[in-house]
Structures are given as structure tokens and as C-alpha cells.
């Protein structure tokens, strides 16, 4: 069983989510603080586990479910898992408190908390899952909760469209990822991550590796908004700010990065991994940063910079060197802290002034001192200025860049430039400079709104100035988990004057310079907007709708004849295709044709000819009832043939069915409108061809069936056991009622349903007439 506590931790979010709406209804104001107790407790639990992890222990929990399929609800918390779990529950606590203030008075706050907790629990599930399928289920749950949270203001059409877009992109990616995970499970022989990670070489060598990798990457890239799937993240800013801060910057969008980090020991190290993950990561890093330059809305600005940060993380994992992995882990933590803080500040500013447009904001420091101080700290961390933790992260990234070569370092420096520009826009632009008129008079946000940013910015400062606090117990086990082997981690604020230090100093200065030339910059870059990815998404969606409309018009056009024709043609096509590549010709030829002719009595042949003639009469007859009469003849002749081959039961049933169907035909035709226009000759030819095809196929079937010999002849079994077992001499009825009773039960149920259906339709028709 392992640590039951692990399972309780993961599933507690779902339980409390059920309770959240009622709690909010009774204690509206204190709800935020009350519900925040859960994530707080989870954070403390994870912090308490850190020493055990530092010693290399791993927490596990497994509840077997379907052993044959390798399905089990199994969790595993190692360094990487706990780091993310800490991020999720820690920031979760602050977000829940923040949401209490931000959405105060909103009637749907209870539902908001419920879905926020569902998200938190499923995100914990993703971080701690050991079984691939459990990981996938939680993965899809995060997409689902993100869909509902983005579309929280369901009245606004743009929120709904953004939610749908996010859902479709991440959902489709998730589907591809499932295929990839199953392939991995197939190749490695087990669905458990712990087992899978030991099969690295087998996986890398297998022919399925490229396919599995690309499929998994599809899932990871769509979730972590990598190029070309990045467009859904800025649109997801329609969501309330706590959601943007929590899901779309700190935790959910990092699920893809987490997955890549988790699979690195198994899949990493190959050229495909380097170019796909590293390349796409670098491209997203640059694209995100570049697109952020021209944004004026505070949250979209932060969203694009998050895209760029995610690109950096993906690139670092792609590079795969132990330094790069160390840099990645440090940057994950640093980014979560400062980006989370900045988003919350953006929310507070929006809450206080009523606008998020950077060009209309300025000089808010005097009105919102605490928020301003937290903003400055967070912006400095983002820009990578010592003694903030962000500086250490950037230093490491610069060292990785320098180590790898001019191309990588120039890309990193460029994106760092963009980041500094954004940081200064937020810190300097919004809070300093001359104050401008804003829709709502700016006032200091309530305590619940500035608590989050202050804590996060404070942590950034604390860890920055004393990195050894986290390096041993948190960073080291995580890097070990990612690289698959223990790695020594020594973080320090000061490395002496190194090229990385000079570079970062220069970047900060140039970045601030860029800020002061922001208006010129925006005018220059405005025409170079690029939204190709979003257009393709829109095109794909319209194409899908058009396809659906076209297909429905063709297949469901209301004509019964058309449905019948489609069914017959499909059957003939499919079975015909299968039959044609069977050796049917020699099967047919070695049928005992001579014996068939010998014992065929002339009156049976007479009947056969009668059937053919009657069918022709039925087809040719101008009046519908004439055709019914001809069909009657066919029915009677077939019944006689049944009799001639010794099946009295069947003959009896067929005769009765024949008469009843004649009666039904008569009654139906009595109600049907007079067909003024009989079908055109072209239609009759087409119908004749279709009928001939179907008839030919059926004849082929019958002939082939005659040829098939059932080795252990079932009929002997029935013949022998009819009397002793089932006390009946009429084997046909015994089979129907006793041996194959279940089938008959099914058949009569179907009959019953069909009758009810017919009755309902007829009743409906009569009401329409009255």
C-alpha cells in the first residue's frame, strides 16, 4: 500500500471541492481564508517530507485496479514531484486567499472555489502520478477544470471562445499524448513510470521511439503553450486573475515541462530530443518575448512573457546537460515566484483602477505603496537583478548559453532583453512616472490582495540572498530525479566577476534603455504582428464545421430511400472488399455441384423458377399492391422450399409472417399518400444495379456457407442432447428456447422495443394530423 497519506493528500482536493460551495454560501467573507487551510496543510505536509527526500527516499502508494491491463492507482513522490507539489499547494494557498478578495460578492464564488480545488487536486495528481494512465486522467482533468475556470464569466462570448480554444488545443494534445504514453508502455512493457524510466536504452533504441516521442511532445507542447500551440495562453487571460496567476503561469502550463523533465531519463539524450525539444523551446522563448513587446494589456503582456519563460524551460530540458537541468529547476522555482506575484499585482491594479492598459496607468506607487513595493521586488527578480533569486536563475542560464555556443547565448540574451523590458514596463511604467486619470480612483488593495504578491516577492528575495536554504533539500533531489543520477548542487549569489555577470549587467541596462524608448518601439513593431497559428486554428475549426454540415446534408437528408441505399452500398462495399481477396473462386469451384444437381427434384426447381419470375413481376409491376402480391408469391414459394428441406417450423413461421406482412403492407399503403411521380427511369436503373449487387453478394454468401464444413459439428451436440438435457424432441424449438435462450431473450427485447418505436411514431403522426 505504501504511504496512504500520499493518496489522501492528492484526493483531499476533490473532497473539499464538494464542500466548498456550501462553505462559501454560509461564510462568504471568510471563505477564502477557511478554504485556504487545505492547500496550506498540504504545503506543510510536503515541506515535512523534504528531509526524507533529501536522504534519497521516495514516497509511493499503489492501489491495484485492473492488473491484466497494468492499471493501478499508483502515486510516487520524488524530488521533481515534491517540487511541483510544493509549487501547486504553496501558490494554491495564496491564490485561494487572493480569490476571496478579488471575487468578493460574486454569486458564483462557491463554484469557483470548487473548480479551483478540483484543479489543484488534479494538478497534484499529475505531479505525483506513477502510472501513465493515472497521469493522463489527471492531465485531462486539469484541461477540463481550466476550461471551466477560463469560461468563469460565462456571459461573455470571448471568455467562452477562449475557454473552448484552450480546451480544444490542450485536449487534442492530450489525446496525442495518450497514444504516445501507450506506445511507451507497449515498448517498455509496463505502464509504471518508475519501471519505464529504467528502460531508457530499450526505449531509445526501439523503432517506435520517434513516433512515441513526437506524440508525447504534442501533448506537452500544447499544454505548455509552446510554438505553434502558444496562441491559446494569451487568449486564456479572459479568465479571472487568480486563475491566470495560478493555472496559466505557475502550475498548469508547467505540466508539459514537468512531463518532459519526468521522461528525460527515459527519452532524453538523442538528437531528436535535442532538436525537437531544444529547438522548439528556443523558438518559443524568442517568439514569446518578441510578441510581448507590442502588448499594452498588462495580463497579455505577462502571458506572452510566460510563453517565453516556458520556452526557456523547454529549451533547457532539450539541452539535457546537468548544468542545463540545474538551471531549469532553479528557473522553474524563480519563475513561479516572480511571475505569480506579478500576475496577482496585475489583478490588484485592475481591481483598484478598473483598467489593465499599460499606456493608461502610471504613478500608482503613492496610492498603492505595499503593492508597488512587491511589484518592484518581483520585477527586479524577473529582470534578474541580484540579490533576487531570479538573478541566480539567469546567471545559470547564461552559463549554459556560454557553454553551448554563440547561437544559443545570443537567443538567451535576446529573450532576457525582452524580459527586462517587460519587467521595467510593469515596475517603472505602472507604478512610477506621472499619475494618469483612471476609471476608478486608485486605492490600496485590501489585505487579501497584497498578501500573495508580498509573500512571493519576499520568498524570492529570501531564497535569492540565501540560496543554500533550498539548494540541498529541494533543488538537488529534483535535478537527481530529472537526470536519473545524483548531482551535487551548489548555488551561490556571488561567483566573482564572470562573463555571465557582465552579460547580465549589460542586458539589464539595455533593457531599461529599451523601456524608455517604448513608444517608438511599439510603433516600429506594431505592423510586424504575427498570429499565423491562431488563424490556422480558426481555419481548422471552420473546416471541421463545414465538414460536419456537408456530411450531415449528404447522409441525413431525410429521404428513407437515400438511407437504405447508403446502408446497402456500405454493406456490399465492405463485405465485397473482404470477400474479393479471399480464395472464393476455388472454394466455389470445389462445391459438390454434381450431387446438388442429382438430388434436386424437378418441382423444387419449378419453385425456384417461380421465385425468379415473381421477383421480376414485383419489380416490373406498375401498382404497388401488385408488387405486394408478387412478393407474397415469393414468400410462399420460399416457405415451400423450407418445407422441402425438412423445416416445418420454419415453413409455418414463414407462411404466417407472409400473410401478416401482406396485411401490414395493405394497411401502410392505405395511409401512404398516393405517389404521383413514380421514380424516373435513371433512378430505376440505379436501384436495379444496387439490388443486383446486393443480391449477388448474398448468393455468394450462401454458396460459400454451403461449402464451409464445421469440424466439431454443433448440430450433433444439439441432436444428442435435445432430449436428455432439454426434455424436447423438437430440436429447433429446444435450441431457440433452452440452449440459445439468451439470444432469444435478446431478440424478443429488440422486438418489443421496435414495436414501441413504431407505435410512438404512428401516434406522433396522428397528433400531427389533428
Amino acid at each position, binding site marked *: 500500500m505504501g504511504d496512504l497519506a500520499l493518496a489522501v493528500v492528492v484526493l483531499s482536493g476533490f473532497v473539499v471541492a464538494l464542500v466548498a460551495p456550501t462553505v462559501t454560501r454560509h461564510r462568504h467573507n471568510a471563505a477564502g481564508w477557511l478554504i485556504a487551510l487545505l492547500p496550506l496543510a498540504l504545503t506543510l505536509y510536503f515541506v515535512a517530507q523534504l528531509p526524507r527526500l533529501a536522504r534519497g527516499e521516495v514516497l509511493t502508494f499503489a492501489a491495484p485496479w485492473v492488473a491484466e491491463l497494468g492499471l493501478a492507482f499508483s502515486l510516487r513522490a520524488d524530488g521533481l514531484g515534491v517540487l511541483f507539489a510544493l509549487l501547486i499547494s504553496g501558490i494554491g494557498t495564496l491564490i485561494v486567499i487572493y480569490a476571496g478578495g478579488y471575487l468578493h460578492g460574486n454569486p458564483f464564488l462557491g463554484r469557483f472555489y470548487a473548480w479551483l480545488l478540483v484543479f489543484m487536486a488534479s494538478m497534484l495528481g499529475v505531479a505525483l502520478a506513477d502510472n501513465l494512465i493515472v497521469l493522463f486522467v489527471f492531465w485531462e482533468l486539469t484541461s477540463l477544470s481550466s476550461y471551466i475556470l477560463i469560461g468563469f464569466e460565462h456571459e461573455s462570448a470571448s471568455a467562452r471562445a477562449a475557454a473552448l480554444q484552450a480546451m480544444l488545443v490542450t485536449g487534442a494534445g492530450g489525446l496525442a499524448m495518450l497514444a504516445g504514453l501507450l506506445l511507451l508502455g507497449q515498448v517498455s512493457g509496463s505502464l509504471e513510470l518508475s519501471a519505464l524510466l529504467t528502460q531508457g536504452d530499450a526505449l531509445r533504441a526501439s523503432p517506435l521511439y520517434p513516433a512515441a516521442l513526437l506524440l508525447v511532445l504534442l501533448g506537452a507542447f500544447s499544454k505548455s503553450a509552446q510554438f505553434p500551440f502558444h496562441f491559446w495562453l494569451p487568449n486564456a487571460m479572459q479568465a479571472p486573475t487568480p486563475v491566470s496567476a495560478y493555472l496559466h503561469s505557475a502550475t498548469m502550463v508547467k505540466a508539459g515541462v514537468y512531463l518532459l523533465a519526468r521522461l528525460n531519463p527515459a527519452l532524453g539524450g538523442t538528437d531528436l530530443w535535442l532538436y525537437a525539444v531544444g529547438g522548439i523551446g528556443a523558438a518559443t522563448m524568442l517568439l514569446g518575448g518578441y510578441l510581448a513587446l507590442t502588448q499594452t494589456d498588462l495580463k497579455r503582456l505577462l502571458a506572452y512573457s510566460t510563453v517565453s519563460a516556458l520556452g526557456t524551460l523547454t529549451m533547457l530540458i532539450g539541452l539535457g546537460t546537468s548544468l542545463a537541468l540545474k538551471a531549469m529547476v532553479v528557473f522553474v522555482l524563480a519563475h513561479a515566484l516572480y511571475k505569480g506575484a506579478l500576475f496577482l499585482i496585475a489583478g490588484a491594479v485592475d481591481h483598484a483602477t478598473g483598467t489593465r492598459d499599460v499606456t493608461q496607468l502610471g504613478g500608482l506607487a503613492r496610492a498603492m505603496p505595499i503593492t508597488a513595493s512587491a511589484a518592484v521586488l518581483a520585477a527586479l527578480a524577473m529582470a534578474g537583478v541580484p540579490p533576487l533569486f531570479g538573478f541566480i536563475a539567469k546567471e545559470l542560464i547564461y552559463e549554459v548559453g556560454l557553454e553551448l555556443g554563440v547561437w544559443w547565448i545570443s537567443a538567451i540574451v535576446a529573450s532576457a532583453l525582452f524580459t527586462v523590458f517587460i519587467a521595467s514596463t510593469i515596475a517603472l511604467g505602472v507604478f512610477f512616472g506621472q499619475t494618469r486619470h483612471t476609471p476608478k480612483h486608485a486605492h490600496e488593495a485590501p489585505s487579501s490582495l497584497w498578501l500573495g504578491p508580498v509573500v512571493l516577492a519576499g520568498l524570492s528575495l529570501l531564497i535569492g540572498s540565501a540560496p543554500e536554504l533550498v539548494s540541498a533539500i529541494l533543488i538537488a533531489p529534483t535535478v537527481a530525479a530529472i537526470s536519473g543520477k545524483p548531482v551535487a548542487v551548489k548555488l551561490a549569489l556571488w561567483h566573482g566577476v564572470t562573463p555571465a555577470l557582465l552579460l547580465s549587467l549589460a542586458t539589464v541596462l539595455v533593457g531599461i534603455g529599451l523601456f524608455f524608448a517604448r513608444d517608438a518601439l511599439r510603433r516600429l513593431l506594431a505592423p510586424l504582428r504575427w498570429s499565423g497559428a491562431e488563424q490556422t486554428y480558426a481555419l481548422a475549426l471552420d473546416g471541421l464545421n463545414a465538414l460536419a454540415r456537408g456530411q450531415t446534408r449528404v447522409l441525413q437528408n431525410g429521404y428513407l430511400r437515400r438511407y437504405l441505399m447508403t446502408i446497402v452500398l456500405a454493406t456490399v462495399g465492405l463485405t465485397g472488399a473482404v470477400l474479393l481477396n479471399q480464395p472464393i473462386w476455388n472454394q466455389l469451384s470445389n462445391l459438390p455441384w454434381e450431387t446438388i444437381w442429382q438430388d434436386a427434384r424437378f418441382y423444387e426447381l419449378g419453385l425456384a423458377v417461380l421465385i425468379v419470375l415473381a421477383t421480376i413481376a414485383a419489380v416490373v409491376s406498375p401498382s404497388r399492391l401488385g408488387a405486394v402480391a408478387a412478393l407474397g408469391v415469393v414468400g410462399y414459394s420460399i416457405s415451400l422450399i423450407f418445407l422441402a428441406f425438412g423445416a*416445418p*417450423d420454419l415453413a*409455418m*413461421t414463414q407462411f*404466417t*409472417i407472409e*400473410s*401478416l406482412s401482406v*396485411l*401490414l403492407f395493405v*394497411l*401502410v399503403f392505405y*395511409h401512404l399518400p398516393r405517389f404521383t411521380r413514380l421514380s424516373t427511369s435513371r433512378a430505376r436503373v440505379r436501384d436495379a444495379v444496387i439490388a443486383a449487387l446486393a443480391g449477388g453478394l448474398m448468393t455468394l454468401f450462401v454458396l460459400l456457407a454451403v461449402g464451409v464444413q464445421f469440424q466439431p459439428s454443433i448440430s450433433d451436440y444439439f441432436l444428442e442432447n435435445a432430449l436428455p*438435457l*432439454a*426434455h*424436447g*424432441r*423438437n430440436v*429447433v*424449438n*429446444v435450441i*431457440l*428456447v*433452452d440452449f440459445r*435462450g*439468451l439470444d*432469444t*431473450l435478446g431478440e*424478443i*427485447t429488440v*422486438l*418489443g422495443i*421496435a*414495436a*414501441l418505436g*413504431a*407505435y410512438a411514431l*404512428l*401516434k406522433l403522426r*396522428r397528433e400531427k394530423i389533428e
Partner: protein
Amino acid sequence: MNSLILQTAVRYLLPLLLLFSVFVFGRGHNEPGGGFVGGLIAAAAYALYAIAYDTRAARQILPIEPRLLIGFGLLLALCSGMLGVANDRPFMTGQWYAFALPGWGKIELGAPLFFDAGVYLVVLGVSLTIIFALAEE
């Protein structure tokens, strides 16, 4: 149709047909016949009656609503299947009870017969539901 000759003919034919249909159903286990044919013949009898008189009259001589017949038939078929389960044998295994009837000798009654009766009722119910619905106007 208000043809007197047909109505008198049907008044005698109906009991004959019903008797014959139960007879065909009854011996279904050993000679040709069974629930399905029996049900159809009974349905034909009632249809004939509905044509000779009208559906309202036909509904009167039928003890219960045809749709309920379907329900009863299915229920009967299911219960006869459950008999097997009652004797902790798999579902649908035939259970046979032999007992002697004074004057007729030993006869055997079994679950499959009830199942067959269920089939009889369902087939009758199905045919009549559709025929009466069609012939209603």
C-alpha cells in the same frame, strides 16, 4: 368492413384460430410449433377480428392492452430465466418439474416452457401493437 358474412365467419373462426394457436404453442417442445408461431397465429386471429369489426371491438375482446402484453412477455421470459439462478445454476438453465396429473399421466413442466410462453406473449403484443396502431384510423 361491414360485411355480415365476414363478421359471422370471423365470429366462429376466431376461437378456432386461438385454440389452434395455443395448441401449436403447447406442443412446440416436441413437434413443430412453438411460442413464435403460436403468437403469430393468435395475432393473425385478432387482426382478422379487427378487419371484420373495428379495432375498438378487437381491443375489447383482447383482455389487456397489447403494449402491456410485451411487458408481461418479457417479464415472464426473464423470470423463467431467473428460475435457474434461484437453484444457484447459471442464468437461463432449464429447470424441469415432473408431476403426475390424474387422468393424463406424467407430464413435465419446465422453465423453457414459461420462457416460450413469454415469447408467445411478446410476439402477440408486438404484432397487435403495430397492426392496431396502423388500422386505428
